[in-house]
């Protein structure tokens, strides 16, 4: 029953999407408003239809309907209820359905909120959004159907007797409940983590969110309405998508840190990089769009960035879901690879063809020219160059080099994490410097002396900060320089906020807190942006500290023995074996963490033995200063081996992420909240 309901709802959603495309394009041709309204209604119908389909699958997961082969593959009778729910996005088929649901929610939001203000763009905007949705619905219906069920073909030879099919085959019977329960495979242990509960939905929201700006940009190109209207309509949607993508990336890092057990959070894995690429292009767009709004410049460039962001999303989706790329983050090998590649190429080519057509017609000419190298707009362009250079370098290392070497040399050539760091470190340094200088530059241009005057205080404070670090014992020159560059960007953002508060106090006599709140309320984008900058600088400090000063040692301890590591000490206290409710066997070590001789924490690193593989779960004592992170390698009651990491400042990565999210939310929040 649930399978039939889900299939019917999926089919209805696909029908709605296809009808919306036809009706809206017909209205674009004839100008008949009733067809546009009819198309809009069909587009809006996709959301409840997909909600119904998703609800059917969730109910099947929660009520253990193992005849559905998806439920059979991702859960078993021992799976706890929370992970039964998150199993919705635990494997390809369910996550594709969930992806379509999120996309249709975004689309309904965009139609609902922009229907009146951007009605001229809707005859093209709706078909583009619906085409993207219809593509994913086709994948769900025809290639990766989550509502397929196990059937036994009574007349078939034994080895071909069991089939997975959405429709009931002739002369077929369902397997017995006992066989289904006994064979159910259970969730991949790597996904049994709280990070996996929220990381994929956030990442998907970020990915699908970029469909909206892309659709508005293409609608502007197709309709010829290339005023700033599409920019207004999409700026906030881009920020929302960027916010979720940032959150997805940060949570992904946290999951890797907690689950993969190597003491790090970013490994330059191709799938991680594929998710980072649209973030880089989106960041470039968020900056350059300001220049189009304020100065009427970079029209062609902004179009290119929106197209590139969507294209990067589609490529990243292909990289993750096709299974062609070896990664711990990727899904199993799947037949969706080729259709995804074809869809990615088709949408990108269509967008570029439309862009070339309008550009040749002269509709994308800038209203002004760059007046000076030392202007805010020039520095923003430089900022864009940095982000695109990061994009090119990371794309080249992850995909370009392996693919081209395979094509031209007949051998795959790859690079490792060190080379990625070689590429990106100078570019990130340049980004932080620009983050400090650009907000102080004036639109149109300014003199070197004037800019120098504005930079005097931030540079002085940065110098004092670096001096403080040197006095406190930071003897590594690279680290001091790194901290200095990041601090400079942070100080500029802080100075700008303080200056704004002081100006309000001076002119309006407000108290500091009121002035601070009003400042963010009056100019959300500007001050939300500064908060994002602060978040990025806090992340930067965390990355420098945890990368350059990480300590990693391994010790085997007898029970009761203590080992000293820097100013910490670790005492091996006890070891137990226990069976969890879901059946896994846990080997748990109890350790006491001491600092300067005082007990600061008791931690319990453990190894969980699942039928599929063992999982090392770290025990950690976390402070803002560092993480004392311990993995149990092996052991028994008498003796155990531990891998111990001290990761300085690593928690600033997560706190900085939080600031970044908060700043983006302020910048994206609808006006008038004050």
């Amino acid at each position, binding site marked *: 029953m649930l399978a039939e309901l889900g299939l019917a709802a999926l089919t209805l959603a696909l029908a709605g999407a296809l009808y919306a495309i036809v009706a809206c394009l017909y209205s674009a041709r004839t100008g008949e408003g009733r067809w546009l309204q009819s198309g809009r209604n069909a587009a809006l119908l996709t959301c409840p239809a997909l909600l119904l389909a998703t609800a059917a699958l969730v109910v099947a997961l929660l009520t253990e309907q193992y005849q559905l082969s998806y439920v059979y593959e991702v859960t078993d009778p021992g799976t706890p209820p929370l992970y039964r729910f998150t199993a919705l996005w635990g494997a390809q088929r369910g996550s594709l359905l969930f992806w379509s649901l999120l996309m249709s929610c975004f689309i309904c939001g965009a139609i609902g909120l922009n229907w009146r203000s951007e009605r001229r763009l809707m005859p093209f905007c709706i078909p583009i959004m619906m085409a993207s949705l219809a593509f994913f619905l086709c994948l769900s219906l025809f290639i990766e159907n989550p509502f397929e069920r196990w059937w036994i073909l009574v007349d078939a030879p034994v080895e071909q007797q069991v089939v997975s099919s959405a429709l009931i085959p002739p002369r077929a019977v369902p397997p*017995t409940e006992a066989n289904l329960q006994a*064979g159910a495979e259970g969730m991949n242990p790597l996904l049994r983590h709280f990070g996996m509960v929220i990381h994929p939905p956030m990442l998907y929201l970020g990915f699908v969110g970029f469909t909206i700006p892309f659709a508005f940009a293409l609608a502007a190109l197709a309709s010829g309405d290339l005023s700033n209207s599409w920019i207004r309509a999409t700026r906030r949607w881009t920020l929302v998508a960027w916010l979720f993508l940032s959150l997805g990336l940060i949570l992904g890092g946290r999951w890797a840190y907690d689950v993969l057990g190597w003491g790090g959070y970013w490994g330059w894995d191709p799938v991680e990089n594929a998710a980072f690429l649209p973030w880089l292009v989106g960041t470039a767009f968020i900056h350059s769009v300001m220049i189009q709004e304020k100065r009427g410049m970079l029209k062609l460039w902004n179009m290119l960035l929106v197209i590139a962001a969507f294209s990067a999303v589609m490529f990243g989706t292909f990289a993750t879901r096709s299974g062609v790329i070896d990664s711990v983050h990727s899904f199993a090998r799947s037949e969706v690879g080729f259709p995804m590649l074809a869809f990615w190429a088709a949408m990108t080519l269509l967008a570029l063809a439309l862009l070339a057509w309008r550009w040749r017609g002269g509709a994308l000419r800038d209203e002004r020219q760059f007046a000076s190298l030392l202007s805010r707009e020039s520095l923003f362009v*430089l900022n864009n160059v940095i982000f695109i250079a990061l994009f090119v370098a990371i794309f080249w290392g992850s995909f370009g*080099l392996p693919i081209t070497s395979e094509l031209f040399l007949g051998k795959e050539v790859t690079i490792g994490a060190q*080379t990625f760091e070689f*590429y990106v470190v100078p570019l990130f340094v340049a980004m932080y410097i620009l983050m400090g200088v650009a907000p102080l530059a004036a639109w149109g241009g300014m*003199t070197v*002396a004037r800019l120098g005057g504005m930079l005097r205080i931030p540079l002085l404070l940065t110098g004092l900060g670096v001096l403080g670090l040197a006095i406190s014992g930071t003897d590594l020159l690279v680290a001091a320089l790194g901290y200095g560059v990041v601090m400079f960007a942070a100080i500029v953002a802080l100075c700008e906020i303080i200056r704004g508060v002081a100006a309000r106090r001076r002119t309006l006599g407000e108290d500091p807190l009121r002035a601070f709140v009003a400042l963010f309320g009056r100019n959300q984008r500007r001050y939300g942006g500064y908060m994002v900058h602060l978040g990025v600088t806090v992340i930067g400090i965390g990355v420098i500290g945890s990368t350059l000063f990480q300590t990693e040692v*391994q010790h085997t301890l007898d029970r009761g023995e203590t080992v000293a590591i820097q100013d910490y000490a670790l005492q091996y206290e006890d070891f137990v074996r226990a069976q969890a409710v879901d059946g896994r066997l846990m080997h748990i070590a109890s350790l006491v963490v001491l600092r300067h001789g005082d007990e600061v924490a008791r931690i319990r690193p453990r190894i969980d033995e699942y039928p599929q*593989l063992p999982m090392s779960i770290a025990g950690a004592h976390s402070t803002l200063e560092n993480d004392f992170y311990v993995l149990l390698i092996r052991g028994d009651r008498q003796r155990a081996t531990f891998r111990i990491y001290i990761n300085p400042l690593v928690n600033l990565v997560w706190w900085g992420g939080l600031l970044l999210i908060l700043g983006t939310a302020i910048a994206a929040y609808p006006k008038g909240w004050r």
Partner: protein
Amino acid sequence: MSQAGWEKPKHPLKRKRSQRVQFITAGVVILVSLLYLLVSGTLQGARYFITVAEVLDDPAHRGRTLRVSGAVDGESIDYDSENAVIRFEIVHIPGQYDDLAQALHDALADDNAPRMKIIVEDAAIPDLLQHEAQAILTGALERDGIFHATELLLKCPSRFEESSPPEALGQIPEHN
């Protein structure tokens, strides 16, 4: 003072031309720097991704830093936890395959497939180091005939591949 260079020139055409030169110069400098970064980084860090048979057959590969892939033989895994040293063997898998899980399984079932000893020093034993996992190693085959790896990546396809129809389900219900 440097300010003089930024004063407004008297002739607007001259000013425009000088600005264009500045922009072009800045663009060229940025482009050349980026190209240098990419090319030099790639030349230093690029590694051939090759098979076990290729490493063993070609003496030119000895001592060179390479990236090699093979199937992990679970029985050969030995971890010296006192010294944090992992030792194991990998078996040759072809460069091209349709189904990684099958390729790994077939490789380990073939007694004549080329094998290579691996040593990884100062490393925690990864959870994914299991029988029939795919190991991707960066390192060099040294004179002792052992591949000394500095980086070890693992993929367990049998855990991540979609399952084929389970035959155990095929017992036809009694009431039918």
